[in-house]
């Protein structure tokens, strides 16, 4: 497989310099390195600038509704759990419109990979405040400054029961690509919050801001302790935005709890049930 196998007739229409371009690049190189193609992989996206990625990536996919990528991906995964299922979502898509789905996916631990294109802004609707925009943030919807405290996606994921929680940065394509592969290798729900500069509408969280203020978690940090991970997830400030894997533990996947799909994915079971007399007799 080569990068060109993933090309479609559509060229990216993101703004030049948008972090989505880098996320897309990182994902494609992970596909090439791991052999993710339309025989073994399916993509799901929500609605936002992030969702456009599907048009530029030649992998079978579903672009769902704003906020609803996660339940859609869950139905897909439960029906055919042999597929790698990647969810591309936005901070607005995943944490505002789809917040309920996000926490419930975390507590269930299906083997889904959720990549949050976190630009702390609503991009596609041309620049309103999002759940990860900081307090006081000025935007079209908060001209006097955001009155809401931001959500912390990592802390929320950890608290809700996600078994793999990481933060990536769109400015580091090889690092992000490696993180995506690790997320995929994890058995269970993986959340990767990806710091994604929106060069057009978010003038605070720029490439320069992230380059100056992020650092990579190193071997001295052990991502297996939930309380420590939760504490680490609180860290955010000048020169102190950690990147890497905050939390990763083994836990049975949601799919593994259903004996009916232990041997074969649901879609490979024959739905033809000509003899149901045993079932009907229970009602006599």
């Amino acid at each position, binding site marked *: 497989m080569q990068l060109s196998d993933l090309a479609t007739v559509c060229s990216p229409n993101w703004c030049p310099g948008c972090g989505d371009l880098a996320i897309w690049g990182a994902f494609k190189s992970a596909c090439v390195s791991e052999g993710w193609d339309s025989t073994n992989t399916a993509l799901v996206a929500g609605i936002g600038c992030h969702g456009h990625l599907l048009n530029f990536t030649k992998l079978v996919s579903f672009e769902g509704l704003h906020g609803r990528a996660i339940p859609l991906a869950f139905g897909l995964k439960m029906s*055919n759990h042999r597929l790698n299922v990647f969810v591309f979502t936005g901070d607005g898509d995943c944490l505002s419109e789809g917040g309920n789905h996000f926490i419930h996916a975390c507590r269930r631990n299906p083997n889904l990979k959720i990549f949050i294109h976190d630009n702390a802004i609503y991009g596609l609707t041309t620049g309103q405040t999002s759940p990860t925009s900081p307090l006081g943030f000025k935007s079209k919807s908060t001209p006097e400054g955001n009155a809401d405290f931001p959500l912390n996606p990592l802390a929320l994921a950890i608290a809700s029961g996600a078994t793999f929680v990481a933060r990536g940065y769109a400015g580091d394509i090889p690092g992000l690509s490696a993180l995506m592969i690790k997320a995929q290798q994890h058995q269970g729900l993986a959340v990767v919050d990806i710091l994604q500069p929106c060069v057009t509408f978010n003038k605070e969280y720029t490439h320069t801001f992230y380059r100056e203020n992020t650092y990579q978690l190193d071997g001295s940090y052990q991502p297996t302790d939930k309380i420590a991970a939760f504490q680490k997830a609180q860290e955010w400030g000048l020169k102190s935005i950690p990147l890497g894997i905050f939390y990763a533990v083994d836990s049975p996947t949601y799919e593994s709890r259903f004996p009916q799909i232990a041997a074969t994915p649901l879609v490979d079971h024959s739905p033809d049930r000509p003899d149901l007399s045993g079932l009907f007799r229970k009602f006599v």
Partner: protein
Amino acid sequence: MSAPIYSLKIGGQAGQGIKSSGQLIAKVASRSGYHIHTYTEFPSLIRGGHNITQVLFSPDEIAAPLRQTDLLIALNQDTITRHLAELVSGSGLLFDADKKFRTAGAAPGVRLLPVPLAKLSGGQELLINTVAVGAALALLGGRLDTLNDLLRAEFADKGDAVIRPNLEAAAAGFDFAARNFAAQVEPRLTPLPDRPRQMIVNGAEAVALGAIAGGLQFAAIYPMSPISGILRVLAQYQAEYGYIYKQPEDEISAVNMAVGAGFAGARAMTATSGGGFCLMTEGYGLAGMTETPVVIVEGMRPGPATGLPTWSAQSDLQFILHAHQGDFPRIVLAASDIRDAFYLTRQAFNLAAKYQTPVVVIIDKDLCDDDHSYPVFDNSDFKLDRGKFTSDFNPGFARYYIESDGISTRSAPGTGNFFIANSDEHNQQGFSSEDISDVVSQQAKRLRKLDTCAQTDMPAPQLIGPPDAPLTLVSWGSNRGAVLHALRDFPDVNYLHLTWMSPFPTTAVTSQLSRARHIIDIESNATAQLAQLIAAQTGITITDHLLKFDGRPFFPDEISAKINSVLHPA
């Protein structure tokens, strides 16, 4: 001439085992060879409040609940106060002789049947209803050993400590009534020889069984009255029959999960009532836009908002026909009875697969909850239809290829085929497109599916009675039973029953109604929603309506009274 229908009603507080007592009597009747039909009324409470279950039984089929009561079993004063007026000369009133119930005001000739229920139950509150069932059975000439078999089966997993007191309570009630009311015993439940065993099912169970029969592979259903019975059955048998039932976090999730499963190639469904369907509307259109098969069961109850959670209505028809922005093809079928609940649900899975669009099966609370006798379902005749589907790899696959019948060939992830199921308007591969020719051709293609469906799969609506009649009744859904019951007395009147709401049998309905001399539209809603649909589709305006929107079902006598008022105006 049909055999008479016997109507027994048992009433008490929630928590007194009213529904289970009714079920026991219904099962005894069924095992003794009778047709049964139950009707329950209960508030949205777990304890307290007034509960009643009516059990009708007859050697012949029973179409609808009736207002008559031949035997009233009262476990509390409230039951007597509310239902005494239903008793006429010859009816019986069975009540607890140990409690000082007031029975004053009973019509002349009503038989009072005091049984010391509390004493015979040995002071055990939970056994009072069993004593009452035993006593009723003796009065109706039923067999105690049939009841005993049922009690043993019912409590099999609880063991002898529960079974024995129940058997003793049933026998105590039975013996007391047999001894003290010997002269009043009627042969109402005397076993009938050579009767085939029938199922006892309610509509929710029939829908669940129809789904399993139709090849269900994935169901996501959030609990809500009146459809919770569907998920109870589906959850119970999933491992055995190799499908998955999942309780999601809300109805938005439910429908999107089902769409995701449909995309994967699984036969998928969800179910809800009006409030949950409000939350599903965006996903409903998503299935339409992405041409993903999904079955949605909508169990109606009175609205708006929380409305009357445990009562029935037919007020969601126009909502289901119009929910979601824009235009997309939706197949909408309304079930009227147990047969429909099973066979239409089963067919819905084929239709969804064939037309790659959402199929809604409409039911209502009464259909969901009421038990009926029905011949044992048969699935051996069913032909599973996957529609145009390919799992062959095709490098040039065009998922949304423009076809004259509107139906493009579908594929699934994992086949190697590339396509995008896209919520945005799209071209033939599924890429987002705002190009005029894509926008127009895709929209038109999707809508053509409804014409194809009308031509290939939609049957003519059922006209019951003579083709030429002085009076034509029109109705839908579970009103059918009450209409058919009423029509026993009006052989000249005919009845047009509608099941297909979208696509709509416009030609057949137009031809039938344009020759009708007088039409009465009968509906359980306040705005004549079916008549609105008929007017929109045929241009025929029905001006005479019998509308009921108090949460209760139509009783046949209400329909007879309306027919009489038209045929014999005062």
